[in-house]
Structure formats: C-alpha cells, structure tokens
C-alpha cells in the first residue's frame, strides 16, 4: 500500500514577496493515479505544480518522489537535496505547459530527440524509433520534419506531450494544457491525455475542463486561496460535493 505512493508533498508553503500563495498543502499521489487540480484563477494551482517540478522553490515543507526527497523540512525551513539527487528526481517527471513551449528552431522530430540525446546521452539511432512511435501515436508522424510554427496549437501541444514522454518519465504534469487552444482543438489534446491515462501513466492535471476531470481523473483536488478546500474521488467529488465553496465553483464552471 505504502509502496504505491509515488508523490508525497507535505505542508508545502510558498510566498512571493511575503504574500503566501501556498499555505501548507498536503498531497499524495499514487502510482497510475490521474489527479485533477481545479480551482479559481490565482488559487495557486500552477505554483503547486511548479514547486513539485523545481521551477519554484518552496519555503517550508517536504516533497518526496518515488521515495527520494527533493526537499525536506528542517526546523521550519525547506532544505533541498544535492544537485545530483535533484536532477534524478526531476527526471521522474515530464511537464506540459499551457503555452506549449516547443523549441521553435527545431523540427518536430528534433524537439523530441533533443533531451534524450543531449541530456541522457542516448544514441540518436536508439531514440529515433521511440520518437517516431510517439509521433505516430499522436497522429503527427507526417509532420516530423515540420517546424512548430507550421502546426496548429493543438498539434503543437500534442508534440509537447510527446516530447516530454520521449524522456520516459514516470509522472506527467500538465498545467492547463488546453487553455490556450480554440475549443475545437482541445479534443485532440484531451484524447491524447485520455490515452495516456489508459496506459496507466501517473498524471497531475491542472485544468478547467470539468468533463475531463470528471471522466478521466480518479481523484480531484479543489484549491482556493492557496489551500485545498476539498478533495476526493472524482465520482464523489462531482456527484456530491460537500463544501459550499466547491458547489459554487462547480456551478460557475457549468455555466
């Protein structure tokens, strides 16, 4: 049971210029779990993901991924692991951004090959079949030699997902992956994510897509003002929310 836990965040505290943005968040994610994080703008959802991924540093609390501590709390302060350990832990996670952030000067295929070849020092011939297989899976194999600027937003986001997957992460983090897309382009991206979930990828998804959270996520966390207001299994969460704030939020999202 304990062994199933892949991410454990405890009492995460984070302030920006003295303003608390995360006010002691506890979060546990099990292997193969799909966790949706929802909540109003400014509630700290992105910051939570970015702390997990070391794009931001926390002030206090502890983060454990696959049993390794990225950061631990000692006497009320966050103490980070050494650089090598950090690097190892960050390698467990892939990240997908709202703005895709593909490398514009590289073709689609080179975007996928870049990190395996230059970070993991793998042979190009070794990664190529993996990358091509991923591109086939997202139905963009025929675009492998195109530059990102030639792709639609939805296609770019799928490439960004494939780029992260090409590093073979155990966990995928998504920060509003469809928010920058026109509604008709979100479907392809959501389908790709759905497929990942079916393949038992562990996923944390910050999203405004309530349908996706309801259908695909196992668990849902509702954040507001830097804290977790309510969490639970998604059927229960959407079927029978307990907190007044959750009800109001869900109601506003349905409109």
């Amino acid at each position, binding site marked *: 049971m304990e062994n199933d836990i892949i991410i454990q965040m405890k009492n995460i505290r984070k302030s920006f210029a003295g303003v608390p943005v995360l006010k002691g968040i506890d979060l546990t994610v099990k292997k193969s779990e799909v966790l949706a994080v929802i909540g109003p703008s400014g509630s700290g959802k992105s910051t939570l993901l970015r702390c997990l*991924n*070391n*794009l931001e540093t926390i002030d206090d609390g502890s983060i454990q991924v696959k049993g390794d501590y990225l950061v631990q709390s000692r006497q009320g302060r966050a103490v980070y692991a050494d650089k090598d350990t950090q*690097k190892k832990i*960050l*390698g467990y*996670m*892939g*990240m997908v*951004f709202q*703005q895709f*952030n*593909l*490398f*514009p*000067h*590289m073709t689609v295929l080179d975007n996928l090959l*870049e*990190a395996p070849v*230059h*970070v*993991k020092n793998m042979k190009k011939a070794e990664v190529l079949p993996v990358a091509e297989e991923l591109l086939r899976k997202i139905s963009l194999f025929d675009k492998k030699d195109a*530059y*990102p*600027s*030639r792709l639609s937003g939805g296609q770019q986001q799928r490439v*960004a997902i494939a*780029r*992260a997957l090409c*590093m073979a992460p155990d966990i995928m983090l998504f920060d509003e992956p469809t928010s920058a897309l026109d509604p008709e382009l979100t479907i392809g991206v959501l389908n790709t994510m759905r497929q990942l979930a079916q393949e038992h990828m562990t996923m944390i998804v910050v999203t405004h897509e309530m349908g996706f959270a309801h259908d695909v996520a196992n668990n849902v966390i509702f954040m507001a003002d830097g804290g977790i207001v309510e969490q639970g299994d998604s059927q229960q969460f959407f079927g029978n929310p307990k907190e007044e704030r959750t009800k109001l939020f869900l109601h506003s999202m349905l409109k």
Partner: protein
Amino acid sequence: MHNIANTFMLMLEGTQTTLQIFSITLILSIPLGLLISLARLSPLRLISRLVEIYIWIMRGTPLMLQLLFVYFALPMVGIKLSDLTAALFAFTLNYAAYFAEIFRAGIQSINRGQYEAAKTLGMSYPQTMQRIILPQVIRRVLPPISNETINLVKDTSLIYILAMNDLLRVARTIVQREFDMTPFVIAAVFYLVMTFVLTWLFKLLEAHYGKYEV
C-alpha cells in the same frame, strides 16, 4: 601624368588595410560581445555592474578618443603596440560593447517558457544557452548586428589619425597631391561595394536562420 590605373592600385592597397581592420575586429568582437552580454546578465551583481560600467564607457566616449588613448597612453605605461594592433585593440573593445548590448537585448527577448521547458527536460544552463536560447537569439540579433557591421566598415576610416594607410587616407593623399576629386569618388564606390556585399550576406544569413518562422 595623371594615371588612373595607378591611383586605382594604390586605393586597392588601402582597401586591404580597411578590410583587414574590419574583418579582424568583427571576428574578435562578436564572440567577445557575446561573452560580455552573458556577464552582463550574470546573477552576480558585482560582475554585471562592472560590465555595465565598461559598456557605458565604451559607448559613452568617442571611438576616436579611444583610438588615441590606446595609441598614445599605453606606450606611456610601457605597453608598446604596433599601429595595427593598437587600432584592432581599440576597435574590438569598442565594438564588443555594442555587440554585447545587442546580444543582451536578444537574450532577454526570448520567452521564459523556453528556459523552463529546457529545465524540465533536464538540460543544464550551458546546454540551454547553447542549444535552445542562442540559436533563437542569432535570428533576432542579425538585423542590428548587420547595422553595426556596416557602421564598422565606415568607422575603419578613423584610423587615418594613426597614420595608417587605409582606403580613405590613400584617397585623401592622392587628392591633395593631384588636385583631382576622382579618388574620393572611387573611395565612395569602394565603400558602397563593401556595404552592399555585407547587406547581401546578412540577407542570406537571415533567410538561413529564419527558416523556422512562418
């Protein structure tokens, strides 16, 4: 008596000096400018402040003054440079400062998301700069670099004060001797040819580095 072919040959020799100063300065000052821009963006405040002061001095005083300073002041403290070296020294330090500011603006114009994507893929800072940021910066800085490069062609004429026989000085010498304006016209044509070739080269470079844009 007036020998146009002879004038032409003399001016070609002058052009050689001009091109020598131009090309060596360019080859040295672009990489140096890049290094200076990285130091300018360093999180270490002392380094970035020092570089800022350096850039301020180089851009805030006339290049002519800097040339004279290197030429006359350095020998006084026991550093003896040849005319050519002195000129190259001053030009390189001056142009590196301008290039540094161009690179800095270029680097800062790259979206933060590029650094974050590289970081989450496990790339180190040097890798990120070398493989992700700088290739994009090159595309963006080519137009201002092209401008500065064309300025440099014309600025090389400042070395006449160091008594070096560049294109313009040769032209002036002949004009004064022969009371004939033709050498000035020829010099103008030579400068125009050089800047034309450069403009064309930079267009090719822009097309090459811009192929990923829509």
